[in-house]
């Protein structure tokens, strides 16, 4: 699994660790202490690492490799050599046929950059690398992004107390396939054997 550090979290963390270090050195040298407020504000917090899915920037073609595993082709195999001569080929049917798009009414180019297909783009046209895909999702899914930012959406592991340890969280596309983001059903873990049975009159 690739990990990238959530930029908004990482920068203050590094800054505060630096400040702590500076304060410690200053104290050791006998220079006056920093203001108590400044020290309190500089409590070190461990970072939140965002886990990205395997195969980001790769495409499942729907073909099967000789070893039986699904064939995956990196986008850069064909794209990323601008300018692209897309008119001379018919790649959509050839390469992208396995994609079942079920994401509202969005067309491919709502997220994928028209001129650089190895990139995504925001609504304002700014290009994004694939590992910044969360920024793209946040444009439309604001309430989920707000909940996510407050730890109330998306699984996590690690520490509730970030002065004692960090957390690992999932990028949006770990759980939500970008082309069909609805969660599909799962089979639950087995019930406890003492579970009260459904009441007879329950539907």
């Amino acid at each position: 699994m690739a990990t990238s550090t959530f930029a908004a979290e990482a920068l203050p963390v590094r800054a505060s660790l630096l400040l702590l270090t500076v304060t410690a050195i200053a104290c050791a040298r006998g220079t006056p202490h920093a203001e108590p407020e400044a020290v309190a504000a500089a409590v070190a917090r461990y970072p939140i690492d965002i886990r990205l899915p395997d195969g980001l920037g790769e495409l499942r073609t729907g073909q099967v490799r000789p070893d039986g595993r699904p064939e995956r082709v990196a986008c850069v195999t064909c794209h990323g050599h601008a300018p692209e001569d897309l008119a001379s080929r018919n790649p959509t049917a050839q390469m992208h046929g396995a994609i079942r798009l079920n994401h509202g009414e969005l067309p491919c180019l709502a997220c994928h950059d028209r001129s650089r297909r190895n990139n995504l783009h925001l609504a304002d046209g700014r290009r994004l690398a694939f590992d910044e895909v969360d920024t793209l999702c946040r444009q439309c899914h604001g309430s989920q992004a707000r909940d996510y930012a407050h730890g109330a959406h998306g699984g996590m592991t690690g520490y509730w107390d970030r002065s004692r340890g960090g957390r690992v969280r999932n990028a949006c596309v770990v759980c939500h396939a970008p082309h069909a983001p609805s969660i599909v059903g799962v089979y639950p873990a087995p019930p406890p054997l003492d579970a009260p049975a459904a009441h007879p009159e329950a539907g």
Partner: protein
Amino acid sequence: MTNTPRRTHLKVLGASLGAAAFAKTVAPLVEWSADMDLDEFMQRHYRELDSNALADVISRHEFSARDEYGADVTIRDVRPTPGVVFGYALNLSICIGCRKCAEACHQENNHDRRSHQSYIRVFEMSAGSIDFHRGNAGYDHPVPAPDKYYMPVQCQQCENPPCVSVCPVEATWSEPDGIVVVDYDWCIGCRYCEAACPYHARRFNWHKPEIPADEVNPNQGLLSNRIRPQGVMEKCTFCLHRTRQGQLPACLEACPTGARVFGNLLDPESDIRWVLANKRVFVLKEELGTRPRFFYFFDV
């Protein structure tokens, strides 16, 4: 006519009866000696243990885990952190009923494998209703099912816990960080607390728990997930052996959707406080006055 007077006869008879009665009285002590030593019998309440006695208790339990389960375990007595009161919130809008939390609890807390026990019971509820009478905790089909929502129920860590006030021997109490714990060595197994709990959150060890050696979680807390003896009550402790060291509880880490939010209620910057301030939050059976520290909320 005998040489001994009648009075002496009566004395001998009385002494014999007394000796027999004494023998009968101490018989349980003698009979128990096979699986219960004197130290265990004389052990004081958890809150009366000094550090030496505590170390003895812990090493005895570690030894018995090795002896009875073949597992090398480390038992620690992790104390509450001042300035921390734990709260837990669960998002009913995104829980899909996968029971991964219950499964993680089963493994983390060294539950009996035979009964597949867990401190979490997930109810499948009909949309638009909160009638547990019609809920089903034994569902076994793909989830989420249409027109259903899922409501995991575990110990609500009440501020006013009825289970604590009914305990006749004070074997269960509320800790400063809000976690209701059980001294498994002091519990007499009367199950009053199980009856008193309005959330059905307590479990009784009808049997000695069965756990294969390689499945025993060796990271154990004296008041939490150490393997419980037969005949005592147990309950969710918000994984205090983890959470008192800053870690998230096992059920939260297992949740794939992020329906669970855990943190310090006294920290205004915590995730749990954000949920309480910004979401539509309720507690179960509020009218009973138990004041749970476990909250449910909806995405709105």
